[in-house]
Each structure stands twice: as structure tokens, then as C-alpha cells.
């Protein structure tokens, strides 16, 4: 069987690849680029690049302030970006979509405004915030800061040996004192897809707010924020073929309206007097200062591009490539995958160890063959510690990844073993 005939791959994969100009460049002295670091950041299709360039060349002005043609065009383009993102995640209202700098800022926005909240949302001594051992640092540290500042306690779900969330003590973690349950939808290290709806249902039974980090899910899975069961969903633009510098926070209207402002400044106000100010309604209440305008325009083009191909088809492609990669990696002697081994239950990021070679050295040798992977702790040190490893090598695919690239990775790993004389 030639590998290009795998069932489930995106049809016209070569046409899709041609949309991404960077995939045509060579590296390492003339070798074709094999980009397997999409969980770190995705590559950008021409339409995103062109849309951003066109905006800067023809429509650039500040938004919501400038009383002239360009100002109106820029505002319209920026707000259209919001509309497109709202449609992409099936948000009930465009006003529930808030632009941030990235997913980290979105999570910090929630954690900080909760720390400042009064009334029913207030968090104080004796309250509990629950996260998981599987999180990216950005969904751990903001909650450590919140609990340190409020006197609340941080607790977490552990990880089972096969890389899933350990829900065996869910009754001890989610109690009447639990105010927030935050978790990742898809693990950036283990690839695990978590049972979000089930955990959200349990959290809602005790009145806790559910925060969902969809940074790795939004690129790969069809997202319906309401169906997810969460109250807040965040993701970053640059992993969904959009630009860096923009993230998305979706929240239920009632919650967003109850939370106090995050940053103070222009755009987030209704009126300002020296004694006191009143604040704009959502989403602007949480968007102080000049926002990332061209980034929002680019993100709008990005999610439109993904929707045009279809998130169901992209998900199927990811699963097909992931299954093929798991099969190939299993043939490399001394290689151990961290996380679930069933492609149907995981995302496209695969972290692994190779006996006798440090991840840095693996990445270095692969780079000499034009293959880009990530080596290190992937901002998930606790999850690595859970498996007794300090770091790992991670390959991550996307809609433009081909089976031939997976073959190149497997050959590259064989070469790495022989380079370091491992037989």
C-alpha cells in the first residue's frame, strides 16, 4: 500500500499544502522542510498572510475611535474577525467573544478577575480551585497565584499510568467548597482528549465555574462552546493557522457581566470622571487599549479557512496521521510514547522518549535532516514529572501533514539511533 492512499486523509492534500508557502521552502542545506511542530505553532496559509497585508496596505487605522473612512473600514474588519470567531466556536452571541493577547492572557484574565470578584463569585479562604496535573503551565500558575492571593486551596486531578485524567477521587475534589474547575480539553504533551462534559456536569452540580483550555482542541476538533459544557473557553490564534499576538476568551454572558474589569484603559469604559468610571458592556469591558487589530483580521481569515475545509475533515485527517505515526514510532527500538496509544482518543501531539538519547540531541539530529520537532518539557513540567521524565521529544501534525513526513520522522529516528551508536 502506498502511504498516500490512507483512508481518512484530507482529499487534495497537495492542494492544501500549496496554500502554505512556508512548506515549499528547504532547510538544512537543501532538504525539504518536514514541519512536525504544529502544536507549538501552526503554519499560516497564503489567505491569512494576504488578508493581513491587504489590511495594513489599504485599511489601516485605529478601531472604534477614528471618524473617517479608514477608521470605519478598520473597525468593520476587526469586528468581522469577532463574528467569524463566534461562528467558528458556535458562540450564542458575538459579544461573548473577547480578544486577548493569547490563551495565557485569557486564563490570567479569568483568574485575576475572579480574585477581585465580590458577591457570589468571590473566592476566599476555605474555597477550592481544581486544576489537573496534565495542564500547560499557563493553566496552573494563574490559579496558584489566585489561590495564594485569596487564601483558597488549589487541588488537582492526577494522571493515570496510561495518560488519562484520574477521576477516581472526583468526589473529594469537586465538593460544595469548589469554586472553579479548570482543565485542558486536549493535552499538549500526552495528546489525551479529556471527558470535559462529564467533569463540567459534576462541577455545575456544586455551582463551580468550569474553565476550559482549548488551545490544542480548537485546531483539531469541531468546537461548540455551549455543548462543551464549560462556562469559559480559551484558545490562541497562532495554533489555528492564525497570527501570533491574539487569543480568544469565550464566556457565558451572565458570567462575563458579573466579573469585574481586568485591565483599565481606553475602550473599556463607558464614561470616566476623576472620581470614578463606569465600564463598557462586553466584550469591550475586557479589551482595554488598542486591540490587536490586524491580528483579529488575520484570525478571522484563519478560522474561515479552517471552516471552509471543515473541522470534521481536519479532525479525521489528524486521527489518520496520528494512527499512522503511532504505528511508525512503535517500530523504532527503545522508543516509548507517553500518553494514550489509541489514536481515536487523542490529539495529534505525540511525546516520546528514546532510550539512550536526550530529547535535545534527538531534535538536533532531526533538524539536520530538515525535520522540525519540539524537545523539552513543553511547558508541562508536572505532567513530565508524573512519568518520571525531565523532558521528551514531541512531534505534532496538522492538516498539512503527510504520511511521507511521518516516514521521514521514523527514518530520522532510526538515523539518530545509529548516529549515537545505539545499534
Amino acid at each position: 500500500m502506498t502511504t498516500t492512499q490512507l483512508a481518512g486523509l484530507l482529499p487534495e492534500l497537495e492542494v492544501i499544502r500549496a496554500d502554505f508557502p512556508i512548506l515549499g521552502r528547504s532547510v538544512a542545506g537543501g532538504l525539504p522542510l518536514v514541519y512536525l511542530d504544529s502544536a507549538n505553532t501552526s503554519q499560516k496559509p497564503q489567505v491569512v498572510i494576504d488578508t493581513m497585508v491587504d489590511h495594513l496596505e489599504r485599511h489601516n487605522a485605529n478601531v472604534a475611535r477614528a471618524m473617517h473612512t479608514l477608521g470605519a473600514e478598520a473597525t468593520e474588519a476587526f469586528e468581522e474577525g469577532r463574528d467569524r470567531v463566534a461562528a467558528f466556536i458556535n458562540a450564542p452571541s458575538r459579544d461573548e467573544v473577547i480578544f486577548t493577547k493569547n490563551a495565557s492572557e485569557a486564563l490570567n484574565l479569568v483568574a485575576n478577575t475572579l480574585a477581585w470578584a465580590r458577591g457570589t463569585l468571590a473566592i476566599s479562604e476555605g474555597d477550592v480551585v481544581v486544576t489537573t496535573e496534565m495542564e500547560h503551565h499557563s493553566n496552573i500558575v494563574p490559579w496558584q497565584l489566585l489561590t495564594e492571593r485569596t487564601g483558597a486551596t488549589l487541588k488537582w486531578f492526577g494522571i493515570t499510568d496510561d495518560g488519562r485524567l484520574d477521576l477516581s477521587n472526583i468526589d473529594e475534589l469537586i465538593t460544595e467548597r469548589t469554586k472553579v474547575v479548570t482543565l485542558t480539553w486536549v493535552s499538549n504533551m500526552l495528546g489525551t482528549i479529556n471527558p470535559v462534559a462529564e467533569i463540567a456536569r459534576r462541577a455545575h452540580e456544586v455551582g463551580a465555574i468550569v474553565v476550559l483550555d482549548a488551545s490544542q482542541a480548537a485546531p483539531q476538533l469541531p468546537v461548540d462552546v455551549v455543548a462543551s459544557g464549560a462556562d469559559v473557553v480559551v484558545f490562541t490564534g497562532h495554533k489555528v493557522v492564525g497570527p501570533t499576538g491574539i487569543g480568544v476568551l469565550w464566556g457565558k454572558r451572565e458570567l462575563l457581566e458579573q466579573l469585574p474589569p481586568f485591565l483599565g484603559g481606553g475602550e473599556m469604559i463607558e464614561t470616566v470622571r476623576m472620581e470614578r468610571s463606569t465600564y463598557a458592556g462586553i466584550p469591550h469591558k475586557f479589551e482595554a487599549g488598542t486591540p490587536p487589530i490586524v491580528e483579529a483580521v488575520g484570525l478571522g481569515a484563519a478560522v474561515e479557512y479552517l471552516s471552509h475545509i471543515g473541522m470534521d475533515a481536519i479532525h479525521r485527517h489528524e486521527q489518520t496521521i496520528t494512527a499512522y505515526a503511532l504505528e511508525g514510532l512503535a517500530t523504532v527500538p527503545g522508543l516509548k510514547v507517553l500518553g494514550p496509544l489509541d489514536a481515536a482518543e487523542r490529539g495529534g501531539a505525540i511525546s516520546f522518549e528514546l532510550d539512550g538519547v536526550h530529547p535535545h540531541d534527538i531534535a538536533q539530529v532531526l533538524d539536520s535532516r530538515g525535520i522540525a520537532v519540539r524537545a523539552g518539557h513543553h511547558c508541562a513540567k508536572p505532567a513530565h514529572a508524573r512519568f518520571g521524565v525531565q523532558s521528551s521529544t514531541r512531534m505534532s501534525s496538522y492538516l498539512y501533514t503527510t504520511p511521507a513526513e511521518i516516514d521521514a520522522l521514523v527514518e530520522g529516528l532510526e538515523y539518530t539511533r545509529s548516529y549515537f551508536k545505539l545499534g
Partner: protein
Amino acid sequence: MMSTELDSLYQDIILDHAKRRLNAGLREPFEAEVHHVNPTCGDEVTLRLHLDGNVVRDISYDNQGCSISSASASVMTELLIGKTVAETQPIQDAFLEMMRGKGQVEPDEDVLEDAIAFAGAAKLTARIKCALLSWMAFQDALVRAQEDSHA
């Protein structure tokens, strides 16, 4: 990076030291113990320094890291153990100058001995920190040990 450059990074001296890890393990006595990490990749080293008057009598360490950082610790301890503190200074300076020289600094083999093998790593921004980790830990330990002896 082509494979010739790969070979210039992974010179036999480096691969050999990464495997043998001279002076590895934590030993007593020591006047200073430091723990350094490379936050970008998570590499770690715990390093102990034993001074005998002004002589570096022992440097012992426990590290988790790539072949470049392991080899660097091995080479460094081999170079510095037994020297006086004053004698270690020009070696430290020369190593730092080479690693921060973006591959443009011609290393002096008389001073650096095996450590000249890291000239290849100096050309790769991502690997400079790997090579410097244990050297920075030694500098730190030296300052602390000397502070304590003056206290």
C-alpha cells in the same frame, strides 16, 4: 544544518565525555552546593564545590541533560579540579568568550584543552546554554564558597 555541521557539534570528545561523565556524583565534603536549571529546556545540574585553601580540591555534580550539557560538566571538572582559584579564572574567561563568540572566536587549545570541542555548539544559539549550564553553576558555587570563608 548539514551533517558535517552535526559532526562539528557532536565531536568525538563530546560524545566520549557525555558517556564517561568524569567526576559525576555528589561527594562530601563541600563548602557550597548550587542548583542551576535551564528554564527553556528543563536541564538541571546540582553542583558541589570543595575548596582547600585556595585550591579547587573537588567539583562533584549530578545532572540531567543532553549530551552537550553532560559533556560540558565532565570536561569542566577535569579541567578545573586541582587548580588554584586564580588559575581557574582565565579558563572560565576563555570558555565564556568562546561560547558567546557566535562561532567567531578561535579557541586557545593550551588554555581550554578538551573544551575547545564546544566551539561547534557556540555556533548554535539553542545549544549555548546547554554548554554553559555547569560553568555558570561553578561560578556561582565559587562565589558562595568564598563568601562563606570570609564570613
